[in-house]
């Protein structure tokens, strides 16, 4: 076991809480029963590390095994950094029939063609997601396992979720992804957040959307608070309408947890009486509005339902779930938020 893998293991043990470490080791399924018992999770972290290091030395396990362990931990606890969504574009005819083994081989082959030193690990998770861990190196240095990039892709869908990717690595990853999934391009989906599940659910439409129906649904039932017959709401119907509209715009039940939405306005100052401002012709007028909350969509829905925000909900806000993005650039020649978008920085 070399120095690097020892350091990675030390860091990994330091980062995972003792109880989570126990389950992770259990899932890893490489330790023998005796070995598992020899690790005492009530001990301080450094003792656990020592024990594990000894086990690793004994079995002559290498970097490969440490990264396995890390991957299991990350798959179970994905919400540790910012996740960015990308969208694959223009699928080739055979894109629909790409299957896992083929994808694995192709991806590894394409990436190692682009970068000399790179270590790729691919694992299929039970919910049909393919997890990819990439440790990057360049032509002179060995792969850096301390700063791996994680990529999550569901085969046959156009979306890819990425965390800790630098701008230098982005084109390399993009190319490998495009080629191995049989697409012609990839673009930024302008959606990011700390919760992988939230971003995935939003794009895959796996949250409960509300559509107008003929029948009185569960919505109105839920909204009716059981109260005293002597208390009466004068404008109950209005409230119900607002609630319905808010739910139609943002969804019902638990909503995907987004943390922020950013609107960038770029325009020019237009007032002929004000010479000093109009003279700065070439300089655009910029304004950034950022909404943030622990659960942004739920906050917005509450705003609309309680009447703080006007209903029907403005397209600027309803575009977040509708288009599945939380970064918008609004320019002069576009009315809607979708019409003009620049590449946002990562």
């Amino acid at each position, binding site marked *: 076991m070399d120095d690097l893998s020892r350091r990675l293991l030390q860091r990994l043990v330091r980062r995972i809480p003792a109880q989570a470490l126990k389950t992770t080791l259990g899932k890893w399924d490489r330790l023998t029963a005796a070995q598992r018992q020899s690790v005492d999770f009530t001990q301080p972290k450094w003792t656990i590390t020592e024990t594990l290091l000894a086990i690793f030395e004994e079995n002559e396990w290498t970097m490969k095994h440490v990264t396995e362990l890390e991957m299991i931990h990350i798959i179970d606890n994905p919400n540790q950094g910012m996740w960015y969504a990308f969208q694959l574009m223009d699928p080739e005819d055979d894109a*629909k*029939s790409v*299957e*896992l083994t083929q994808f694995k081989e192709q991806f590894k082959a394409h990436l190692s063609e682009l970068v000399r030193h790179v270590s790729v690990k691919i694992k*299929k998770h039970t919910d*049909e997601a393919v997890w990819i861990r990439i440790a990057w190196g360049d032509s002179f240095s060995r792969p850096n396992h301390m700063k791996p990039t994680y990529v999550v892709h*569901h*085969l*046959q*869908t*156009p*979306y890819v979720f990425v965390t800790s990717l630098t701008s230098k690595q982005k084109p390399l990853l993009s190319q490998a992804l495009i080629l191995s999934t049989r697409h012609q391009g990839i673009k930024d989906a302008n959606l990011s957040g700390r919760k992988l599940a939230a971003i995935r659910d939003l*794009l*895959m*439409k*796996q949250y409960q*959307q509300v*559509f*107008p*129906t*003929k029948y009185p649904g569960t919505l109105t039932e839920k909204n009716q608070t059981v109260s005293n017959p002597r208390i009466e709401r004068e404008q109950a119907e209005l409230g119900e309408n607002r609630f*319905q*509209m808010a739910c*139609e715009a943002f969804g019902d039940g638990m909503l995907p947890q987004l943390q922020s939405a950013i609107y960038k306005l770029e325009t020019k100052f237009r007032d002929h009486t004000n010479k000093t401002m109009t003279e700065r012709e070439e300089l655009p007028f910029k304004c950034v509005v950022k909404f943030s909350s622990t659960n942004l969509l739920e906050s917005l829905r509450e705003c609309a339902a309680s009447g703080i925000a006007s209903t*029907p909900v403005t397209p600027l806000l309803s575009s977040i779930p*509708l288009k599945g993005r939380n970064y918008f650039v609004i320019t002069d020649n576009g009315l809607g938020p979708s019409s003009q978008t620049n590449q946002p920085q990562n």
Partner: protein
Amino acid sequence: MDGAPSKGVLSHLNLLEVLARSRKSQPQQHSRVNELKAKAAALMKQRDQLKAEIQTHQNLQKLRTSMDRQNSNDEEDEMDDDSENSENSQLLRLMARHTQLKDLLDAHHLIGGYDVIKTSRGKGVCVSLATAYEGVYLDTYNLEIDMKPKLRISRHNIPPFIPLNDLAEQSNMETNIKDFLDLLSRHLNAFAGRKQQLKIVKEELKSIEVMESNVLCSILVLMFTVPRQKTAVLCTLDYTDHTRCLPTRVHFDSEDQELPNSPEWKKNCSLLKETPVHKAIITMKKMGHIV
């Protein structure tokens, strides 16, 4: 038995044989009688049950017809007719209502009806497409379509792996919305069907290992085990036609090179191509081809 030795060995043996036979047959007959009695009792019970079922069914039918008639006449008569209002009759009425509604729903879908309503803002319509497989209703998908200035899908909850935009283009949605909805409905129903099949295989056929599947359920890799030899067979089902619940290609991989070419596995191959995967597996199990 006392006098037996004087008559010789063979006659003694004969006697013993008769004795043994009578001893064996007597309790056997006894158990046979019991068995038949039990069978008769079971059959009688079954008959009673069936009779009761027929009775309820007839009641249901009667209720149904009276309900159907009432729809056109008056609603209040019904309350007076069955004033007994016991729990049983209420249940019956509910069941009758259920079958009635289900028939209506089936008829509605049969004539290609989609639930279309105007959206609250009045700009467009909302179409809901129900999916069903083997008589079980599954997920319902919705589409909100703007009518003006141009026919355009503004909102939907169809998963991204169904190529909605391609389908719209392919069927000329703007000029022929019915074709588009039919095509989309076929895609969604087939997807729901494949998903349901996979679910059944995963839940009810535990001896079959699902090695690989994808979100669209268009590729399915299963692991079969041949009894006795315990050879593993990797079966790849490829659903290239996304509007169907049946695979277009079935491929077997096994350590035993000869196996996929054997006549019984050739039959299995065509079986898998022609029947839904969970049913095919059950048949294969019954024939003893797999564990």
